[in-house]
């Protein structure tokens, strides 16, 4: 293929077209804008612009009690409210030194892995939608997601804004029937994954569109703080579930898939393979969940006053490292509340991945980053 420089030499000086992709664009997954400079259809510069959905989440949380921030974390990455809850309560538990009962830990793992599954399925659907697959994979993903959201609703009362976890445990215990429902669902998930693979895995168009596109080199990925499936697609073995072993993740037997090329295809496959591992974790958790209380009796929801100090808690959310940094001044209100939003930091390398590519590749590269603007803009 001719390089940009060669093309320039052949065609002579060409005009650069500046296109503002977004904030109202079907493939930016929300109100996100890319200032793109194009030479023909080839990208020569790309600057992500965001903040259209900024509502100063951190300031809001610094005005309310520790408890009041939990429902707001639902609205960060509104597809994965359960993992957002977990990230925050983990930080508070570290800050206040709370213990989580065994059963609550298991419930957390179950809901977090269900969240991961539906997020990854949805992401693949959206990615294929960006590739122009007229919504078929997306609808299959949403069909399964719907079933998971139904489970969330019967557990927590809400489908997306679950507001389920509390520091020191979870809000309500799950019933035995609910666990049976989950077991039934988990049993059907491998079939869904098989169908998904048959539909897409060896599709020539998909491979041609994604292989070698949006390559993220390993060193850049580490240096730019890219996390989650995107980092692992570049071949870096870093999964916080394995590194920090937060919660009870050290009890589960699961593997971390690693990519080699760091292109869009690898990132897509990482999600597909992680979904299979997620099913494994779910099966183990559902087998071993013990009975018992779900709240730390020491945990005080109202009027929690952690000691003066600070804590950084992080989890492996479906999108990457989701961290919460809290500084307590001894009052009931966090002095500083900071979110480490994985989607936003993963966007740092968007320009590096897109330069010299086609405008169609920009769209799928962005799709493979997996951003949710609620989290990017906060």
């Amino acid at each position, binding site marked *: 293929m001719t390089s940009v420089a060669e093309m320039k030499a052949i065609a002579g000086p060409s005009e650069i077209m500046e296109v503002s992709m977004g904030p109202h664009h079907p493939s930016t997954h929300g109100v996100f804008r890319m200032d793109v400079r194009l030479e023909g259809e080839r990208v020569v510069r790309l600057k992500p612009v965001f903040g259209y959905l900024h509502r100063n989440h951190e300031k809001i949380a610094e005005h309310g009690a520790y408890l009041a921030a939990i429902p707001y974390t639902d609205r960060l990455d509104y597809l994965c409210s359960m993992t957002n809850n977990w990230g925050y309560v983990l930080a508070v538990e570290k800050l206040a030194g709370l213990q989580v009962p065994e059963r609550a830990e298991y419930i957390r793992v179950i809901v977090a892995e269900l969240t991961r599954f539906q997020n990854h399925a949805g992401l693949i659907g959206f990615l294929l939608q960006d590739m122009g697959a*007229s919504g078929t994979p997306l609808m299959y993903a949403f069909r399964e997601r719907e079933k998971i959201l139904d489970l969330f609703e019967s557990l927590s009362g809400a489908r997306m804004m679950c507001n389920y976890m509390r520091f020191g445990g979870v809000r309500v215990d799950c019933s035995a029937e609910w666990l049976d429902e989950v077991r039934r669902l988990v049993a059907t998930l491998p079939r869904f994954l098989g169908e998904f693979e048959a539909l897409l895995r060896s599709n020539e168009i998909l491979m041609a569109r994604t292989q070698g596109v949006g390559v993220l080199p390993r060193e850049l990925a580490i240096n730019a703080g890219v996390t989650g499936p995107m980092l692992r697609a570049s071949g870096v073995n870093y999964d916080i579930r394995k590194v920090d072993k937060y919660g009870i993740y050290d009890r589960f037997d699961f593997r971390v898939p690693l990519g080699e090329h760091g292109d869009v295809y690898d990132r897509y496959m990482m999600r597909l393979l992680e979904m299979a591992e997620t099913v494994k974790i779910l099966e183990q958790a559902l087998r071993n969940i013990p009975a018992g209380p779900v709240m730390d009796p020491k945990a005080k929801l109202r009027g929690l006053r952690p000691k003066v100090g600070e804590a950084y808690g992080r989890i492996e959310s479906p999108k990457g490292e989701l961290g919460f940094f809290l500084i307590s001044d001894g009052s009931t209100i966090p002095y500083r509340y900071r979110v480490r939003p994985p989607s936003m930091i993963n966007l740092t390398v968007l320009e590096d991945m897109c330069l010299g590519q086609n405008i169609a590749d920009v769209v799928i590269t962005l799709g493979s980053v997996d951003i949710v603007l609620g989290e990017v803009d906060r």
Partner: protein
Amino acid sequence: MSVAVAPAFAADQIFVALKYWLVLHTPGPFQTLVSILLTIIPIIVVFPALFAVTTVLERKGLGRIQNRYGPNRVGPWGVFQPLADAVKSLTKEDIVPRSADHVVHYLAPLVLVATAFLAFAVLPIGRNMTAVNLDAGVLFFFAIGAATELAVFMAGWSSRNKYSLLGAMRAIAQMISYEIPLILSSVAVIMISGTLSTTRIVDEQAHYTGTVAHWNVFTPWGLAGFILFMIAATAETNRSPFDLPEGESEIIAGYFIEYSGFKFALFFLAEYLEMFAVSGLGITLFLGGWSSPFSFLAWIPSWIWFFGKLLALIVGFIWVRGTLPRLRMDQLMNFAWKFMLPMTLVVIVSAGVWRFLPAGVAGSAALGGVIRWLVCALVVAGPYIALARVLERGRKIEKRTYRYAE
């Protein structure tokens, strides 16, 4: 050896007879005019009606493919959905960008629809049912088809929108590139038939050996040519997976991004009309036009055969749309020039081999037919396998295996 089967029922010619009856009963000076109108009006009525049916079929079909119901609110099972859509697009505000070139912006959809309708003139939609029986019907069809490119570019250019410009550029590049395989794959048919007249091409195919028709698609070169023709037709009509000029996830709606209301609906109409027209040509060239595949089915009226085949092809279009993601521009071009073009040339060679191999060898017609078939199939399949190997190696696309960290 081959025999023409006469129509068994008057239903086959009912529309032809009706037209003659009406023309005969009009006063002499108006006969020409009435004859012309009676030819044009059915086309203008039937194909947009088919468009309406197709939209609902497409939406419901896609819905079922995607495990949902599809439109089912307007009328029983949503069959009146196209009416609601028509009312909606008619009553919507027509917005024209201030900086657009108003005249061209206004003309583009009209030109597009007009040229799309013109293409139906040479399609034989039934026995004795060709609007204009041109000697160079195929040529006329492609000439008219090329005019749609002009309309698309008018739309993209006059809107003064960067996306629409990109869309128009894509559309032009794509349509011109795919016109070549489209034409070349029909050249094979023209070679065998020895005529450019669509009516005569169908007549050629409406013969039967035993009970099986002489459709071109039943020959190896015809099958390959038909597949190539349909791929090129998909690209020519901007259908998925070649819908790059619209590419709603990249350039939003491409060349018609700045159109709204009824003009937008006209673009849609034109797109579907083009799809019908080019499918109609595919039917004419390869699927025996209005003829039935088996002689014992010849009692079914010819126009039912034509529209039945058309619907079948449309279902194919919908099915493909529901499955495949879109290609990228450079891949599309590579596909056109590196795969489609050589393959159509191979098909032409194969057709030539077919033409000059004797149909019967040493007194056995059956054996000769089989040998001819196999040789021609080999002429197509060999280069296909070689080409596919080369292309796959060049592109380095592969299924990958992944390693895991414990």
